């Protein structure tokens, strides 16, 4: 157990180091970082001054060593745009992104489990067909388009919610639903198919023969055994959200999380801020993967760490 944990942590550290390496080379070796950060009308003199001041005229390995030493201490330099430490800016935005993602994944799981169970119990019914259709649509609809369509209908036409911004629950509804809609379709599908696998097992017959209530059997016996693939997918969806979809949804709804911050940093060519943002997102993904491993072990006694 301890052995596994140590190896897992070492591997995670390696992944995070790998990510920062790639980010360093992308931002330093491809293209000219100084040109990108300076305004277009900057003179040659200003260019050379900045190049020297930021140390971009040093050999690449010197620059990398400097970057690595600083990054290890969580220092990515000051944001060009806000003139304050970049990492602190990203961390300030974490609560908003976490709120959005966790509400969205909770919404997706809480709605897809009953839907999936009902669909598996009433095979080929209207509900079942709707679930299958829904999950197919979930693969085809671009998330940003869904967001704008929801804004058009519920915020502009009906006026129920706000079109964008942050603060009250009325701000949260539309972005959370947008983010939850597509995972919901996919999770419903997996709940349905893994429940179908379990419903005809022998232990179900045994449980029925003992005279247990049908609802109890379905939730306590079948659902518990079907949980592994469901948790796998839900975890994967949460990871994908934090590493990608949240960024797009935050952009659509002007939701002030790290995704919107990344987009703002990219629009302003703010390299330190971009580096800090990518680093934090990678860290979140890695930590999340470790947590998921432990959730598996808790759910399935057959899983043993080696």
């Amino acid at each position, binding site marked *: 157990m301890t052995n596994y944990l140590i190896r897992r942590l070492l591997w995670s550290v390696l992944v995070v180091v790998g990510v920062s390496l790639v980010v360093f080379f992308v931002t330093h070796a491809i293209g000219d970082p100084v040109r990108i950060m300076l305004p277009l009308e900057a003179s040659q003199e200003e260019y050379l001054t900045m190049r020297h001041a930021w140390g971009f005229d040093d050999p690449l390995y010197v620059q990398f060593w400097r970057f690595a030493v600083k990054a290890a201490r969580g220092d990515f330099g000051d944001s060009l745009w806000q003139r304050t430490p970049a990492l602190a800016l990203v961390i300030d935005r974490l609560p908003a992104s976490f709120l959005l993602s966790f509400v969205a994944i909770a919404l997706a799981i809480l709605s897809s489990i009953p839907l999936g169970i009902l669909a598996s119990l009433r095979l080929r019914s209207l509900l079942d067909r709707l679930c299958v259709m829904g999950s197919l649509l979930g693969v085809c609809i*671009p998330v940003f388009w869904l967001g*704008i369509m929801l*804004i*058009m209908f519920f915020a502009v036409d009906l006026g129920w919610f706000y079109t964008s911004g942050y603060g009250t629950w009325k701000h949260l509804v539309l972005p959370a639903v947008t983010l939850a809609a597509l995972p919901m379709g996919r999770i419903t599908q997996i709940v349905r198919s893994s429940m179908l696998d379990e419903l005809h097992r022998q232990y179900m017959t045994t449980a029925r023969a003992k005279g247990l209530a049908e609802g109890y059997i379905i939730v306590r016996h079948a659902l518990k055994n079907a949980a592994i693939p469901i948790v796998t997918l839900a975890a994967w969806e949460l990871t994908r959200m934090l590493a990608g979809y949240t960024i797009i949804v935050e952009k659509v709804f002007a939701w002030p999380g790290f995704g919107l911050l990344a*987009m703002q940093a990219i*629009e302003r060519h703010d390299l330190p801020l971009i580096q800090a943002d*990518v680093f934090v997102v990678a860290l979140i993904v890695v930590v999340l993967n470790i947590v998921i491993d432990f959730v598996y072990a808790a759910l399935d006694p057959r899983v043993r760490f080696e």
Partner: protein
Amino acid sequence: MKSSPASAASLPRVRVIEEEQFVFWRNLWKLTQYLIRDRVALLGVLIVLTVVFAAVAAPLVAPYDPTKQNIAKRLTPPAWAVKGEAGYWLGTDQLGRDVLSRIIYGGRVSLTVGLSVVAIAGSFGILLGLVSGYFGGRTDDALMRLTDIQTAFPGLLLALTIITMIGPSVRNIIIVLSINGWMVYARITRGIMLSLRETPFIEAARAIGCCDRRIIFRHALPNLLSPLLTIGTLELARIILAEASLSFLGLGVQPPAASWGLMIADGHQYITRGWWLVTFPGLAIAITVFGVNLVASWLRTYSDPTQRYRQIRTVE
């Protein structure tokens, strides 16, 4: 059939080729028959063919020049809606450009990016997967570690960072999406190659003295084609969506050129005055991806012998 002044020695060879052609046409005919029976797959194929045709023949099909502005007619609703104007089937945008024409031209971008990325990422991933699956050992370990690391990457953010550095353009989108997309092929190819390596026919090929290259490309690769075709089609759908997202974020095709994602980004600012600006490009994306996905699921059934047998029996 024309007779050719061929020598007697080359005659049998000619006949073999003719027979092969015949088999090809007969297979194509059978394929069409299955398609007609399978309504859902037919729908998918029709959608894909329509999109491909519209994209290839865009100058002939599109009613207007997609970049021609007409400020007098800006934000005209679709022809069939209230206050719509005949000729503008899907309305005009904030600069008076025809939305339908822009959607038709936008399809070119989606398909160019989609097909290029599938070709580039596909060939690279398959090659790597073949090599690491066949030889195993260190290469294999290194490759699997690499794909492990890359799956932990925040792909979208990294793509955005790279595009910021090298500048937004169609070519750069293709590069970035290829870098992000080759692992799927590598993993799947490697998996199948690992099990193929132990099969009798590969062993036989090795026994009669085939070199590794010949075994990999002439014996193993043909057996991989059908699963890879399915993956490639699924990836095409995914890439079309990814391109739309990058263009929506302003990092793809630059104005005044048209792309579906860019049109939605532009329309986003006019949602109170023109619902058609966002609705139709989004529908174009959704329907195209839907069609490609239907084709993929059909390919999966069709290339699986047991499933195909069930379908053939319903046809014959």
